[in-house]
């Protein structure tokens, strides 16, 4: 079986802003026709990576090739192969949608005749036909984001690089944007970034989780689930002394964490524990609890969402160090997930850090 052609090939990429390392060592490749999601918290290095790919930023070291062309040696050629949507769409508010797309098409090398033919097609594909004569400044955020994508695809690039294309959209617009991105699959290879897994997991063929400028995990959503959710979680509802129960469960071999959670049922001395273990520890935990004279009311398998694992993996206080790393949960796990969530959260400290970096001209 022949290997598919790599549209993007990044090997040992590093990017420094002064003394600070924003990206690196970073290596990955993307094959033709794939839709790949670059996932990471604010400041993880997503934007820096995408800007380097779009020839907007010079790498400090390493090799970045697009369609076999080196971005440093042949930036002019690479730019004509790429359609790039930065985190803030580069829109001229005083232009109409059609005039803007025509300008973008000509700028990317299309002749006037080709642009005249291509712009209506793109307007149709991005559902912008109804607003084509409106000034961009008068459009809603969702439409502006569509115009941003339209300018990226107007010259029919091989590769689309989209930085947070779904950010700030309302639920209806998110669904529409997902459909739009799916419709572009096949015709284009797409690399898009996000800091929220659920936003892009349905759209992408493969996910790359980036943390501190390095790939922390990669694979399809199913592969990541299988790899990252290696630890099993059970939830037990019991009656008795909480400390004694925790101690008994924690002493079972293979158990990596025990924490109290809200019990589904109420009653005197009733509480619930969430127990995480390497392998299936249900029988051993039950035996230990009964031996410790704790009343066992209910045992059930706990669900772990991939989103929470992603947040732990991408956050600052986890032990996962690679695709194969087991995210062993420590007692601080819940707090770390919360912290990561806060960092990933909308309008948070992490975002402020990233914004500050951008102010500094070094947005990551």
């Amino acid at each position: 079986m022949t290997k598919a052609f790599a549209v993007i090939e990044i090997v040992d990429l590093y990017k420094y802003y002064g003394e600070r390392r924003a990206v690196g060592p970073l290596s990955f490749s993307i094959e033709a026709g794939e839709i790949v999601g670059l996932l990471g918290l604010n400041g993880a290095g997503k934007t820096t990576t995408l800007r380097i790919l779009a020839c907007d930023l010079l790498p400090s070291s390493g090799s970045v090739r697009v369609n076999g062309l080196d971005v440093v040696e042949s930036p002019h050629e690479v730019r004509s192969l790429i359609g790039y949507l930065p985190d803030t769409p580069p829109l001229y508010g005083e232009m109409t949608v059609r005039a803007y797309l025509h300008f973008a098409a000509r700028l990317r090398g299309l002749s006037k005749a080709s642009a005249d033919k291509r712009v209506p097609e793109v307007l149709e594909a991005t559902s912008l036909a109804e607003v084509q004569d409106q000034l961009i400044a008068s459009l809603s955020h969702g439409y502006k984001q569509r115009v941003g994508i339209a300018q990226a695809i107007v010259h029919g690039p091989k590769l689309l690089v989209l930085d947070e294309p779904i950010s700030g959209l309302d639920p209806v617009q998110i669904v529409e944007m997902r459909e739009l991105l799916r419709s572009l699959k096949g015709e284009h290879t797409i690399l898009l970034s996000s800091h929220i897994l659920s936003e892009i997991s349905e759209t992408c063929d493969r996910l790359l989780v980036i943390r501190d400028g390095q790939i922390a995990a990669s694979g399809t959503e199913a592969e990541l689930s299988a790899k990252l959710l290696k630890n099993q979680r059970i939830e037990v509802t019991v009656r008795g002394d909480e400390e004694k129960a925790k101690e008994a469960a924690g002493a079972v071999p293979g158990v990596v964490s025990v924490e109290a959670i809200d019990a589904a049922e109420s009653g005197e001395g009733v509480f619930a524990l969430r127990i995480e273990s390497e392998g299936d520890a249900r029988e051993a935990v039950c035996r230990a609890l009964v031996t410790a004279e704790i009343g066992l009311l209910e045992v059930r398998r706990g669900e772990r969402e991939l989103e929470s694992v992603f947040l732990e993996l991408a956050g600052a206080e986890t032990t996962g160090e690679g695709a194969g790393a087991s995210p062993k949960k420590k007692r601080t796990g819940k707090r770390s997930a919360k912290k990561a969530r806060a960092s990933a959260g909308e309008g948070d400290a992490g975002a402020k850090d990233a914004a500050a970096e951008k102010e500094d001209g070094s947005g990551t």
Partner: protein
Amino acid sequence: MRNALLVAGREIGSYGRSLLGWAIGAAALLVEGLWFSANGLTGSRMSADVLREFFNGASGVTMIVAVLMSIPLLAGERERGTLVLLNTAPIRDIEIIVGKYLAAFAMITLITLVSVYMPLLIFVNGKVSLGHVAVGYTGILLLGSAALAIGMFTSAVSRSQVMAAILGGLLLAVMVTLWLVAKVTEPPVNGVLSGMALHHQRQFPFMTGVLKLENVVYYVAVTYFFLLAATKTLEARRWR
């Protein structure tokens, strides 16, 4: 060149659609009119002196207009986040600079030429040569071109429009007042400084209808130098 014209076309359209272009044009014509009325049409004067006085005022206004026009060209785009569209397109830095320069220079030319009714008013009660008028306007346009290039350079190095305006104003003021510095320095430095001054020694011959090749070359050289500096700055920033 095709890309430069493409950029120029968009910029001209933008000037036409935005309030800024019209506001600057209207303000420039108003100030020139007031200057002409106050300094050219009062008292009894020779027609040539009236025309010289008009060009003197118009040259100052044109310098300010040129800097104001240049501020948003790069710093404004950087502030709005639209410069990335040009930076990530297969277009050379020189084409971006030349395109924007051509657009702003076209606007300056338009604003300058609209003021032609004022020199023509002199023909009502006096007489001047059309050659004098043509040379005077040539001087103003050359001065405007040089001031525009200076403004584009400061716009290229600045992160914000405010910074670009401050830097542009300062650099222009220095270039204009070099003749004052020349006055308090010894030869041969005074000759060099006086020759480098943007307005005084270089512009006066144009105002009086004298076309000297050395002055034309000077303004073209200043324009070229600062456009080149702007191009190199953009090139360095594009890849930073």
